[in-house]
């Protein structure tokens, strides 16, 4: 089975046939973290893939920024936190 992986884009060959679950296990990928795509539609875990299939395993978890709207003291535009005051807003606080 030809499997396209992302970030970075690459193609790997996995011996088939088998279920989507088995295929992901061979690749050491957690099913909850990806979509499995064949011919522009999605495959559920129990679906079988054949040796000749070309599929894409697409990650779904994105990093995102430090969350653009997480409601915090600094969330809503530009509140200032005591930490900002201390560091003059210069850097990340830990």
């Amino acid at each position, binding site marked *: 089975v030809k499997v396209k992986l992302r970030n970075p884009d690459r193609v790997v060959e996995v011996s088939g046939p088998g279920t989507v679950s088995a295929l992901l296990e061979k690749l050491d990928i957690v099913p909850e973290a990806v979509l499995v795509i064949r011919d522009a539609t999605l495959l559920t875990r129990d679906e079988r893939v054949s040796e000749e299939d070309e599929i894409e395993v697409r990650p779904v978890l994105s990093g995102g920024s430090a969350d653009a709207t997480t*409601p915090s003291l600094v969330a809503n535009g530009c509140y200032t936190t005591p930490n900002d005051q201390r560091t003059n807003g210069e850097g990340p606080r830990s």
Partner: protein
Amino acid sequence: VKCKVCREHAVVDIRRHNAGFCRDHFLEHVNNQVAKTIKEFSMFGPDDRLFVAVSGGKDSLAVWDILIDLGYDATGFYLDLGIGGYSNRSKEAAVRYAEQKGAKLVVRSLAQEHGFTVPELSKLTGRVPCSGCGLNKRYEFNRAALEEGFDVLVTGHNLDDEVATLFGNVLHWNVDMLGRQAPVLEERLLGDGPDSHPVLVRKVKPLVRIAERETAAYALLKGIDYIVEECPMVEGNTQHRYKEAITLIEESSPGTKHQMYFGFLKRAADRFAQDSGEVNLVACASCGAPTVVYEEGTEPRCSFCKMKALAERRKIEGPRPPRRRRSARSR
């Protein structure tokens, strides 16, 4: 797996609902879940003008698409952060979607508005890119929404985003942030009587009931050509590591994410909100945006203006080498 509605072949299985769906019934399920969320949290009404922050990624394009399909007046807003080819490609995805859907899109660029990009800002201030980026987005989304006269700012935060934020805030016991984590943030006004005007637009997250895997499935099944590549600056990002950890737990115990987030909203959020109380807002002396004064006698200056002033100063003096500090704080 069969579709729980029509018993046809399923293309998506949602283990926490113990249900499979065919394409059409999955899309219907997502729309229903979003409509339910909007109603449950009284997010907005049919006459409100919605401003949707779009990045070109799956979540923001999905929420925009759903709101348009549900009949809301939803305009997109793309902020160009100047992160090289990544920003160009993500902007193309947003513009392409708007054209195909016949939707209105407002585009602004950080460089044009303020004279710096996210990578430049990070270099100049020594701030980690994601932290500066988050502050830029919060500030610009709010400013653009108010200037363009919108009632509500919509973001594509999904269940995984909210759980990862909650998880981070609990790990570090950021009680202030726990007191403010909610699917709706109310509008805030400054000034008295006739001078009173909105300084913080109302913010809502209609996708909090939808897991990240489902927003990706929605976008794919709707044929939305979103940008799959990750922001090049995000690698190793704390939020991403939390998501991975939570996904492993979800894999073995489906429903954990939903229980953690909605359990928090139902049973814990109020207690933290009471503790953190209302903050007294004043206008920033430079830009008029709301901020908080912690020391009596100091001139109020918002985080954004401080960051911008520092960047401008360093532009003249030359940047300092970046500090290798890790931000353990989740926002």
